[in-house]
Every structure is written in C-alpha cells, then in structure tokens.
C-alpha cells in the first residue's frame, strides 16, 4: 500500500468556547442541530475532527456559517488553544535551515507544544489567507513591506533576495509593479487580497490555509483570484486547506473535501463524489442549494 506519509495529521480536534459540562457531548452537534449546550451555554466550535492531508494536496472544508469551519482553521493556525486533540506535522525538506525545526516537531503533538515552537511552525511552514485582507496585511506598511514581513518571519536576512521575491510575487499576482512601495490603503479590495496572497506565499510555505478568500469580492474579481490561487498551487505544489461555504470554490480548487455542520464533520469524500452523490441529507441540501 501507499508509503506516502501525510503532511498533516489531525486527530479528534475539539474546541469548546466556555466551561463545558457532562451534557455538552450529547446535547450539541448535528444530531441535536445546535452548537450551544443548553445546560452550561458552552459553544461547540468544532468537535472530534480527524483528517490527514497529504503533500501537494488540496482539501476543502464546506459548510454553512457557524458550522465550525473557521474555528477549525484557526485552531490549525494556532490562533487559540484547543480544548483537546492532536496535530502532527511531518515534513521532509532538503532545506538545511529547517532541519532543527523539523527534528523538534517530529512525532510531537503540536497542540500541546510551546508557543515558541508553534510560532516557528507557523512562520516557517505555513501561510494563511483570511477572508478580510485587513486581517492579513498592515495598512501602515507598504505593500512590498507586507510581503517582506512573511519572509522576515521565516528569518530571511538578505534584502536583495527579499526585494526580488516581493517583486516576483507582485508580478505573479498580476499587480502593477510601480505600486509596490505604496500603502495597500489605496488599493481596491481585489488588489488587497492579492497582496495578502503574495504575503502568504512569500516564504514558500508547505501548507496554506484559505479562509473564504473570495467572499466579499465582485464576481469577476472572485474568478480572477481563484484562478490565480489554483495556478499558483499547481506551479508551487504546496498543500492547501480551503474553507468555503460555496461549492463552486470547492469544486474549482479541491479534489477532496469534508462537510461540516454544527461543529462536526458529517461527510467526507472525493469532491466529485460529494457533489454528484451526496449521502447525508444536509449535504444533499447544500448541494441542491447551489445557484
């Protein structure tokens, strides 16, 4: 059988907002059709989520708002502490500078490791593109500076290399190069999103998180941004986790996806199978609700 190791393994990831009680388990989730425990008012962000992500693979997570998609993504990006669960990152690299870090995280549950290690993983191995570009970029800094920041995070220390890479990504994302030293304050939403994409990609991450990246953009801009992400993924071959409520986005970008409802994964499979032969009643509803 296959000997390829998953890049990322997540087991039983649970995030609750609140104190939690004995009833939480049985009174929340898709079967109960609610996120909030009626006894202790604790909210189930996501519960018992497990999956593997392989190198060069794109995994979709789809569900309506409040289904726990973003909570899941933020947990993987270490934006907050999880309630329970395990996360393993196994990455082999020829890059000698990463050897120490890779050794440090081997067979280690990243959810329970130090914030210092978490930040290293985040800075060196991953990138994130938020729905709102303002969450990912700083308007007080030039567009080029924003892109440079990601490389500085990954401890790139050669100005010329950083500068060239910023310019390269600017062109790659079809941005006018003469605006690289301007603040993204004066950019359109689509352009800001492109700056955010450049930033996320700048340090050659092996794993990219996409959180509803096209929601809020004009339809034509949406298409442009999605095509861009798709082409760049094909070219650089990193792994991606794509969050969306829109099956169109999932179909365009992913080959495998999970469907979430009330914090739990109710169905997972090949994307074409989910779209053509959805089994769970809720998935059937989602698929049939496409415009």
């Amino acid at each position, binding site marked *: 059988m296959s000997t390829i190791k998953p890049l990322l393994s997540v087991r039983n990831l649970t995030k609750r907002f609140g104190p939690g009680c004995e009833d939480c388990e049985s009174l929340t989730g898709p079967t109960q059709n609610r996120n909030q425990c009626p006894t202790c008012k604790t909210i189930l962000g996501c519960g018992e989520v497990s999956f593997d992500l392989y190198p060069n693979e794109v995994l979709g997570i789809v569900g309506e708002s409040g289904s726990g998609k973003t909570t899941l993504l933020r947990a993987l990006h270490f934006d907050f502490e999880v309630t329970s669960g395990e996360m393993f990152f196994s990455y082999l690299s020829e890059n000698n500078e990463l050897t120490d870090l890779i050794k440090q995280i081997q067979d280690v549950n990243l959810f329970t490791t130090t914030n210092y290690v978490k930040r290293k993983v985040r800075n060196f191995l991953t990138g994130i593109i938020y729905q709102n570009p303002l969450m990912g970029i700083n308007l007080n800094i030039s567009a080029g*500076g924003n892109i440079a920041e990601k490389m500085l995070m990954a401890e790139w220390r050669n*100005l010329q290399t950083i500068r060239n890479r910023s310019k390269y990504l600017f062109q790659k994302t079809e941005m006018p190069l003469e605006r690289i*030293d301007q603040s993204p304050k004066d950019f359109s939403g689509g352009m800001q999103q492109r700056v955010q994409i450049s930033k996320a990609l700048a340090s050659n991450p092996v794993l990219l998180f996409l959180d509803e990246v096209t929601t809020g953009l004009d339809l034509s801009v949406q298409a442009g941004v999605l095509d861009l992400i798709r082409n760049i993924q094909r070219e650089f071959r990193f792994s991606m986790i794509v969050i969306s409520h829109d099956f169109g986005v999932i179909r365009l970008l992913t080959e495998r996806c999970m469907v979430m409802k009330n914090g739990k994964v109710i169905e997972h499979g090949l994307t074409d199978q989910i779209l053509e032969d959805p089994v769970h009643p809720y998935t059937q509803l989602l698929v049939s609700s496409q415009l």
Partner: protein
Amino acid sequence: MTGKEWIMNQQNNKQTFLYNFAYLDENTKKEIRRKILKAVAIPGYQVPFASREMPIGRGWGTGGLQLTLSIIGCADTLKVIDQGSDDSVNAISIKKFIQKVCSIPITNDTKKATVIQTRHRIPEEKLEKNQILVFQVPVPEILRIIEPSDQVTKRMHAEADYSAIWLYLYEDIIHFNEISIGAGYPVMVNQRYIMDPSPIPRFDIPKLNHSRSLLLFGAGREKRIYAIPPFTDVHPLEFEDFTFRTEDFSGKTCSKCNASDVYLDEIIDDESGTRSYQCSDTSYCEKRCQP
C-alpha cells in the same frame, strides 16, 4: 568591616547607626541579587524587580544605582561615568552618594575600578574579567518602538516573534536607505532575545560581543534588570547585504590627545564656528595626555 551594620555619622565623634552599608537594606539587596542571577542565567531576558525609592529621582540612574549598591562590597573600587565623562553632574552626585553610604575608594581610572556604573557609554579601555559594568537604562523594552502594549511585547519575546522589529529596519532601509536608530541599536543576545543595549552609541555595540566582564543593565523607573554574562554572543541586527555600521570618525582625531580609534564628541566653537573633536571618554584622554 563586615558591612552588615555600617556606621556612618561621625558628628561629635559619636558613632551612630544611620544607614545600612550601601544604603539598601539586606533584604532588598538579596532580592536584587537573585534577580541578577536570573538575568545572568537567561542572557538578554528582562527580569522584573521591585525597584525601590532612592534619594535621587527616577530617570536619573536609579536602576543602575540599585544594581551597584547590591553588588558592591568593602573591597571594591568604583568608577562612575556619564556619557564618558567622570565629572558630569550625574556622575558626581552618584559617586558622592555611594561614597557616603559605603566609603569605598572612588577612581577615574578604568583599569583600577572593579565596578563601573555608566550612562550611555562603554569605556575605551578594554574591561577585564574581574570588572562589572553597570548600565543605567531609561527604556529597557526595545520592542516599544513598534508595540505600545507591555503584554504584547512580553509575548513577542517569549515566542521570539521578532518580525516586526526586522520589518521596522526593512522599511527604514527601503525609504531612507539607512537605519534611523542611532544610539541604543537593537542587539540579538545569545541567538535568543533581542535586547536594548541602553542608549550607547553604535560605536560601543561591538564591545558587547564576548565581553570579558559581566554587563548588568538596570532600569529603575521601568523596574527591569537584564544582563549579558561574559563571553556571550551579542550581535547587532543586520541584513546580509546591509550590514551594521558604527559612527564614522575616519580622518578625525582628538584635539587633546590625538587619539583616532575612539568615540569622539564634536565641539563647535561658538565664535569662530570651527569644529573640533575630543575623546568622549575623559579619563582615557587624560591618561594619554599625561607624560
């Protein structure tokens, strides 16, 4: 003298107990010494301490003074400098005070001193293993230029999340082709913590690396102690292709002692408008002038 209960006032030839040796009570000294040990154990890390009220105003060297008083013993010889000068008001009043509460010998000669308290300079003469240099620090938090919240800067140090300060340098170079930080240039200590070296000129920064003497830093107003133990790696933040530069005195010499490889103060004659240069380290200059 044991130093435990030290007798100070000799009015009327009657000996009375007015102050403990070195002004501070023994419990205070003990606390500060413990904090010094912690600071030495974690080079570059800012250790909070209970900064005491001193008979001089906060911001006038109370941090350095408390360090000096905690470590000084009867066998020590003290030197105090302010911007390189032994005779400025701040240096004189601190010297007088310490002499009054310790009655230990005071010197201007760098080589003879065992404890040197300094404001904004490192002496030109190389320090040795048996000497301790105590810095007065106005603002110990180097990340303050980019982050106002103490809670956040603490987290940044804990996670070695230093991209923001690197970005600050990057933007400086992009906009001005120069790093605008002069005195108090940020240094990386022991490959772990970025530290404020107190407002010493860039000229003195290389002296911090693998120093033979122990370097202690005290900030009285901000209640922080930090340290660089002997023979520790200390490097200014720099890019591979934009390296750290010190102040350039090439072609200039001291008008008194003719020294050329020292930090020079510029002196402009009010009447003629001519510029001349003098050693900032006055005792070094005097030593050279003596026949």
